[in-house]
């Protein structure tokens, strides 16, 4: 009988050598050397420290690993920003306006305006998407034609172009929107088109048997859609829809070209006014990120709510 050879102990080291080599490779473009230490020695030292760190973290329980990874990445991020030598006094001075604690011409501004635009656009785009998805699935040829044309156009052209078409193009035929309504309409139409396809997929994913069973117990078609299909489809629709809303939050920065005082517009304008662009852009990035995280949390809650009664293994 042939004994299977025991794996030699050095095999276990291979991943760590790989981590070390990768860290060293990543550090190569950076000039990390000091007055006393040659750059290569410093790189080797840093790469060893990184490898040790990865090994230490790998010994922790799963949840702690996640937390430690987040903390370390956030620290690295802060270090990166700190290295720019930013003017924190300037950030502090303009932060309230960026967040939107105040009014511009009697209306919201900054982060508050961004949020307002997005929330109205979320409601409107959901209604539009539901209408377009139902039209697309109907047996009325005209409705299908209109819905597919709408979806094709608004998915097929850049959002920036749609914003400008609505703001500058529509007045040529006498319809004049001011900046904020134009922004909301453009975002709603654009995202309504994407979401119509998500809704359609969600509705179509409900097995035909469900409808047949509902018909058998005497429900009419409207009731089948409202009481049987949509409640089940919602569970499938929510995760990709949440994705769309987070994308919309960031795409709302495109409406800054219309001069609406939303977050991106103010960040750009303040930065350029005082020649401190980096300060404002980083601050805006962090505010967008915080808003996205709260959107993610809301999505998770809604998912849990609609996931009730469904066992997910």
């Amino acid at each position, binding site marked *: 009988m042939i004994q299977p050879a025991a794996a030699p102990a050095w095999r276990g080291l291979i991943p760590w050598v790989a981590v070390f080599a990768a860290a060293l490779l990543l550090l190569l473009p950076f000039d990390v050397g000091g007055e006393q230490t040659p750059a290569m020695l410093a790189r080797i030292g840093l790469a060893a420290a990184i490898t040790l760190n990865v090994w230490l973290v790998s010994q922790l329980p799963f949840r702690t690993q996640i937390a430690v990874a987040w903390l370390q990445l956030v620290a690295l991020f802060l270090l990166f920003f700190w290295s720019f030598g930013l003017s924190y006094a300037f950030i502090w001075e303009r932060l309230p306006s960026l967040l939107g604690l105040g009014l*511009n011409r009697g209306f919201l501004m900054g982060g508050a305006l961004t949020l307002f635009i997005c929330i109205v656009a979320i409601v409107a785009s959901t209604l539009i998407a539901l209408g377009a998805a139902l*039209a697309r699935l109907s047996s009325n040829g005209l*409705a299908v034609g209109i819905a597919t044309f709408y979806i094709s156009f608004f998915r097929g052209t850049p959002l920036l172009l749609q914003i400008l078409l609505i703001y500058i193009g529509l007045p040529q035929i006498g319809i004049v*929107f001011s900046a904020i*309504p134009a922004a909301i309409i453009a975002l709603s139409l654009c995202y309504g088109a994407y979401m119509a396809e998500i809704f359609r997929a969600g509705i179509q994913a409900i097995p035909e048997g469900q409808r047949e069973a509902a018909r058998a117990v005497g429900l009419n078609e409207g009731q089948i859609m409202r009481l049987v299909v949509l409640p089940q489809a919602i569970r499938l629709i929510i995760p990709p829809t949440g994705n769309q809303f987070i994308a919309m939050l960031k795409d709302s920065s495109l409406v800054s070209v219309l001069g609406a005082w939303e977050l991106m517009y103010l960040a750009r304008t303040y930065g350029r006014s*005082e020649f401190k662009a980096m300060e404002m852009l980083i601050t805006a990035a962090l505010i967008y990120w915080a808003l996205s995280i709260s959107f993610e949390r809301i999505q998770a809650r809604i998912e849990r709510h609609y996931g009730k009664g469904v066992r997910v293994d």
Partner: protein
Amino acid sequence: MYVPFRRSLAVAFASALALAPGLAAAGETLDRVMSRGSLIMSTDPEYPPQSSLNAENEFIGFDIDVGTEIARRMGVEIEFVTPSWDVITAGNWSGRWDMSVGSMTPTKARAEVLNFPAIYYYTPAALVVHEENTAIDSVEAASGTSIGVGVATTYENYLNAALEIDAVGAPSFEYRVSDADIRTYDTDTLALDDLRLGDGVRLDAVVTALPTAMGAIEAGYPLKIVGDPLFLEPLSVATDKGDEAFDTRIAEIVKEMHADGTLTALSEKWYGADLTQ
């Protein structure tokens, strides 16, 4: 498969209507301004010292003061709106705002979509390089280098040898930079941001307004101005096409402001020099 389409259409339609407040019709500008009791001026507050926002979100700058004074002499309040430069220069304002006091050069192409009733001052265009640059020691030496400019600005036109200023009494000039590798930016300050990264990192030079360049240098940008100005551009109030009475009124007011020294005083306040002659 049957779906209750009518009802969903009705919902979509109702929500579209609810979102359509700002419906307005364009009328005679002067009537509109007088009956509203306010003059709405478009400005791009990314260009100190012409126009910028201070910490209290107030508009400050030379253009702002000039616009405020025009409104005062018209007997109305001033209001500011901030559409992007492209949107302002596209014309067809549809009555969203009444005039632009935005240091705009009256070029032939712009005059096709906008009116230029009154020139209120002149800005020198300057060539800027990184302070470590030694190769570009004159305006002519910038030929063949990569130069950043704001998109759709007169500086871009100048580098393309396609600058046609459409104004009476505009000073003449020559094209002194040839074969530049032109890099266009959303605004002039972005070009300056790229130039500050280092000599030749992304750009060798930037062409912009002298006051903008001086503002950047004052704010600590490691830049310097080379040679004498490339050209003097007349800068004008702009209005939408179609209301001669309004244009005439603005022309009268700016003429008064030239004559009584108001413009000179404002120019000295913001630029430290009289640029109005």
